[in-house]
């Protein structure tokens, strides 16, 4: 946006209306001098279009939530969304470039590295990279919007930005993470490999966590970036291959 959003003071504040969005929100007329500012007017029109969309969406949502027929259908699933387009992938590439590196997630690919690391390793831990992906029922990347304790695990719900496997899925996706620390993941971006039933536990690559031990020096140091690279590199080869784990 070309204009600073300075019309919004903190709670209780009442600075003068100055930014384009605020004029739209308040229905106040744009002053003559501002109407001659092409950049301002471009932002003003964009804000007006967005607010019109929001109004329409609120009406739709309100109607949908009040419909008995819809309410009776609850629980049958969410909205199907397409796989992410190349345009979004380019944007993701920029995000990746700017990612800050910190420390790791759950099974963080203890198995993905083919290591079979210790007694806590999942059944698929000794699999090759291709094997890990062949055994994955779902590979998805998104932002955690909810966590809910279950018996011995935590139900983690993502708003999915991209499905790698299968190529399409619901807008939200939930999986069960065995670690209690998952309760604090709300707001985190992550990539998850969810194995087929009885073939292991989910592998999670969380933004801001370190890449798994054994990552090569020339590989990404952020777990999410590393995981994304791993999936990109091996997914195609894994497609159509059977999961080599005995169930």
């Amino acid at each position: 946006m070309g204009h600073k959003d300075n019309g919004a003071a903190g709670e209780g504040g009442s600075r003068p209306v100055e930014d384009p969005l605020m004029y739209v929100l308040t229905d106040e007329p744009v002053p003559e001098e501002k109407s001659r500012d092409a950049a301002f007017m471009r932002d003003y029109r964009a804000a007006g279009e967005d607010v019109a969309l929001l109004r329409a969406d609120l009406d739709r949502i309100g109607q949908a939530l009040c419909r008995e027929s819809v309410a009776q259908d609850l629980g049958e699933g969410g909205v199907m969304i397409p796989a992410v387009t190349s345009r979004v992938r380019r944007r993701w590439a920029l995000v990746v470039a700017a990612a800050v590196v910190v420390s790791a997630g759950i099974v963080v690919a203890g198995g993905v590295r083919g290591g079979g690391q210790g007694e806590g390793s999942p059944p698929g831990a000794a699999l090759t990279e291709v094997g890990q992906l062949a055994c994955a029922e779902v590979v998805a990347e998104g932002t955690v919007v909810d966590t809910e304790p279950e018996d011995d695990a935590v139900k983690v719900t993502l708003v999915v930005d991209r499905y790698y496997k299968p190529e399409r899925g619901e807008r939200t996706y939930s999986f069960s993470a065995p670690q209690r620390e998952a309760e604090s993941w709300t707001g985190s971006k992550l990539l998850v490999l969810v194995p087929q039933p009885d073939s292991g536990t989910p592998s999670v690559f969380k933004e801001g966590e370190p890449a798994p031990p054994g990552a090569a020096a020339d590989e990404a140091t952020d777990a999410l970036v590393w995981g994304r690279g791993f999936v990109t590199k091996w997914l195609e080869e894994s497609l159509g291959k059977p999961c080599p784990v005995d169930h």
Partner: protein
Amino acid sequence: MSRTRADSGRPELLDADQEERVRAVLALGGVPYADLQDGVQQVRLRLLERLERGGEPPRNVSAWVAVVASNLAMDWHRSVRRRRRLEERLGALRNVAGEGDGGEETRVRALAVARALERLPDAQRQVVVLRFHADLSVRQIAGELGVPEGTVKSRLHAAVRSLRTVLHDVEAV
């Protein structure tokens, strides 16, 4: 906009349009379908209590009931039941564009907006619903809620900035 009707010297509590609006404001505020009728009854009761106390009917009944409904929704939204119902409510939106225009793109966008609406702080969600669904002006909202206009503006601005981000993200997909 509909008005209350005179009936034997006494106004109807809510007409059909007002009831529909109350239901939508409750739903947008976070009240699940199963509780909507209770919410409408609560709004009726508040109005009845006001009249029984000898008070004047609100000058703008539609605005008044929308605000009462939004306050009820805030109370409900703060309760522990909200988390359990969230997924149900979002699941209900899968057909959100089925009876309107736009198809898949509209449906995906509406779902994203609904989800973002759920994540807004209660006070921000309330002003968004009152401004854009109940069509109250900033001044009306401030008057009804008893807060300064600047507060309404800042809440509205912060909320719409968040929601616009969602719109743009969905647009890019």
